[in-house]
């Protein structure tokens, strides 16, 4: 099928999210869609899938005019989308999730699971989407959950497939597998739209690239005839420095010391075993590792969100026994959590309300009883300005911000106050190249000023670009340590458990 979007426009109040957008995708083609945070990519895709109604413009499929009032109608016409935040029911099995909403039935309206399972298996073997149809979603890693989402739209006979930042949550290995999958889909004649912030990814798999800026298409490029640099410039509208400048700084005294730390799960299985970690002043310590090897639990323990089973955590030379998140925050330890929507922000709260999430009780924002909203508002305005959060008001709710702008708000909140130590998990997840440059510079500047930074990222590139020292997590242990100039391939091997 061939898709054509014609002069699509959409505004949210004063914000023009899309203006006069023209775009085509052909059968057997992968179109890359690039753009800054808030450029309007997700909005455009939501229009295409019937979630939003465009203010003007039209959708043509095989030259026929289509109007979708809801995602179901879009599905019926062969348009399917894998959202950045999966929409799966955790306690349902893979098959149950896939058929949800289009349950095939036998007589007396009994759900026909056997037939459904067969169809699921057929699709998964056809496109190399390996999944176990009986497994519960909550037991599956993110990469496999994503496959379920893909099968879900193929099950509905989608011919036009949309992926909104599918690689943001995947491990490098999963990204490789994902690329195989979309290449297969392309071979099968599907038309694919692929949104990402990672330039090398579009160069690798796309046939054509469209770049959005401030709601408009500002350019079309072919992967063979363009470069990272050119794409970045087109997106941001200025020159972007893709390399971070990191002068060598002498490291100072120990700020954080972890001794013999172990954590057991509820079923007494070890999540972390006998961890020893030291973080110094003026140092960025990178934690590399495939997601799910204990990094999350480690950081939760450090920030008071998880009880430790044995061992010792000391900040600034003092042991912290069972410290609450607030107490640790009051030591000047700032935490950028890996899941902004679950932990870092409250979607229904305004930006102002979010800005004081972990400081509302401080003198600046309250007198212990009443909140000082005018100070909170000032602070929100300051952070929005400083960290270039694209919004027209600090009173809108956080879930109205584009994904990357939510991240910038969160980073701004944590990095713009007095700070002794920074624990940053996936700090640039879903953030555009221009903002990555800014955030990386902020982290390096903080370290130069004498702050210790613990950086947890699944992006090995990011770890290597920023870290003074790198430790690798594998199955709940630190299995290797590297200096900043180590060979990425060797680090990669360590991440896979080869020592």
């Amino acid at each position, binding site marked *: 099928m061939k898709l054509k979007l014609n002069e699509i426009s959409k505004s949210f109040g004063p914000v023009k999210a899309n203006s006069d957008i023209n775009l085509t995708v052909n059968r057997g083609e992968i179109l890359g869609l690039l753009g800054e945070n808030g450029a309007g990519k997700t909005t455009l895709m939501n229009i295409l899938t019937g979630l939003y109604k465009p203010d003007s413009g039209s959708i043509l499929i095989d030259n026929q005019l289509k109007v979708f009032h809801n995602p179901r109608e879009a599905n019926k016409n062969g348009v399917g989308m894998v959202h950045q935040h999966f929409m799966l029911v955790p306690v349902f099995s893979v098959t149950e999730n896939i058929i949800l909403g289009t349950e095939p039935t036998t007589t007396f309206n009994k759900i026909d699971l056997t037939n459904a399972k067969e169809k699921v298996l057929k699709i998964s073997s056809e496109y190399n989407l390996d999944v176990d149809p009986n497994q519960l979603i909550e037991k599956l890693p993110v990469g496999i959950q994503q496959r379920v989402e893909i099968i879900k739209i193929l099950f509905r006979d989608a011919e036009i497939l949309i992926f909104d930042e599918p690689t943001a949550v995947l491990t490098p290995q999963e990204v490789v597998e994902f690329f195989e999958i979309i290449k297969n889909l392309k071979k099968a004649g599907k038309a694919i739209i692929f949104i990402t912030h990672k330039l090398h990814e579009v160069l690798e798999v796309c046939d054509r690239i469209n770049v959005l800026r401030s709601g408009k298409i500002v350019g079309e490029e072919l992967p063979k005839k363009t470069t990272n640099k050119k794409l970045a410039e087109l997106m941001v509208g200025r020159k972007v420095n893709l390399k971070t400048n990191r002068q060598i700084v002498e490291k100072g005294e120990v700020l954080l010391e972890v001794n013999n730390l172990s954590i057991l799960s509820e079923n007494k299985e070890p999540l972390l075993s006998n961890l020893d970690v030291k973080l110094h002043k003026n140092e960025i310590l990178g934690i590399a590792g495939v997601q799910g090897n204990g990094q999350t639990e480690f950081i939760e323990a450090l920030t008071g*969100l998880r009880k430790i089973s044995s061992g010792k955590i000391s900040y600034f030379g003092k042991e912290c026994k069972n410290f609450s998140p607030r107490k640790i925050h009051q030591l000047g330890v700032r935490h950028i959590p890996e899941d902004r929507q679950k*932990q870092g922000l*409250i979607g229904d709260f305004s930006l102002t309300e979010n800005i004081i*999430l972990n400081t509302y009780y401080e003198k600046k924002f309250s007198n212990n009883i009443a909140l000082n909203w005018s100070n909170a508002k000032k602070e929100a305005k300051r952070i929005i300005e400083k960290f270039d959060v694209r919004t027209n008001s600090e009173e809108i709710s956080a879930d109205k911000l584009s994904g990357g702008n939510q991240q910038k708000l969160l980073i701004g909140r944590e990095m713009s106050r007095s700070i002794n130590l920074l624990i940053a998990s996936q700090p640039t997840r879903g953030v555009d190249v221009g903002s990555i440059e800014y955030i990386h510079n902020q982290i390096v500047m903080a370290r130069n000023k004498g702050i210790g930074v613990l950086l947890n990222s699944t992006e090995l590139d990011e770890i290597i670009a920023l870290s003074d020292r790198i430790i690798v997590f594998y199955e709940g242990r630190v299995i290797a340590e590297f200096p900043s100039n180590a060979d990425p391939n060797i680090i990669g091997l360590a991440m896979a458990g080869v020592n």
Partner: protein
Amino acid sequence: MKFFIYLSNYFSNRETIQEIFLIPVIATLLAIFLGLLLLIVSGSSTQIALTALVALFTGSFGSLSAISETFTAATPLIFAALGIAVGFRAGLFNIGAEGQIILGGMAAVVIGFSFQLPFAIHLIIILLSGALFGAFYAFIAGWLKATTGAHEVITTIMLNLIAYRLLDFFLRMPAIQKEGRNDPISKSIFETAELPRILYLLDPNLRVHMGFLIAIVAVFFVYWLIFHTTIGYEFRAVGKSVEASKYGGINPAITIVLAMSIAGLLAGLAGACQIAGVLGRATPGFSAGIGFDAIAVALLGRAHPIGVLFAGILFGALIAGGRAMQVSANVSLDLITVIQALIIIFIAAPILIRKLFPWIFK
């Protein structure tokens, strides 16, 4: 109109003017219309339906005494619904207002008849005791949730049942039961403990009492609490996301217990106000389902204090107007229950209302 938009921006936590004012008003009018239609369908003449309609309005807002009755009925509803609204904000579904009202009322009765104190002091103590006992009763449910995870819907329903039995037992205790009576009825409170009628000088029969004014003060207090204090911020944060609140350094367990207790405090005040302002003594059914109607009021008011004030007055009007309707059109009071239920259905389905009246929500 501008004023209302200003009001809604100022008062609300991003609920739009439509959600706070238009939807409840339309829902109510629609419900009344359908209620009367039901009357006609079930065999009454159009004449009677019209009489009933007129009685509903004149009986609630048609005269000074009608308005007095409306406000009298609204008073405990507003208190209890404010409590339920606080619970909603903290993510708690408190079904237990009825039991909390009973406990608050029982405490008020005891304080009211046991001793005589100077007028203002007695009044303050009777209200405080009601608030305290209501708070204590709700605290139990909050504490159970915080420590064991027991769901508050279940525990508060149980606590309601316990409160009913407790009241039965209480009313037959020799120290409580009115002398020379065999039926369960408490002694009457002293006059020094009564909430004065505010329109006494105009006409001693106008029942609206000082409790209504206190309820309005409570509305603004709860508004301030929810939107302008650190505690209110904690309530709302925990109500929206427990994970994010923990990250923000909030202790969800303490917050839940506190929110529940404040909810019970307000419901307890509702009970005390009924005793000190209207009834003067306790009988087995004195809570009269106010705690359940209050859930509807809190929903209708979108868990927003200002919304609760208007919704409470509206439900008070339905009660007062319903009585007048029963008298002048001989229509069963059950019709009011039907109308209330319809209102809830429409509130629960705002999309339905948007679909029915698209031009209003342009």
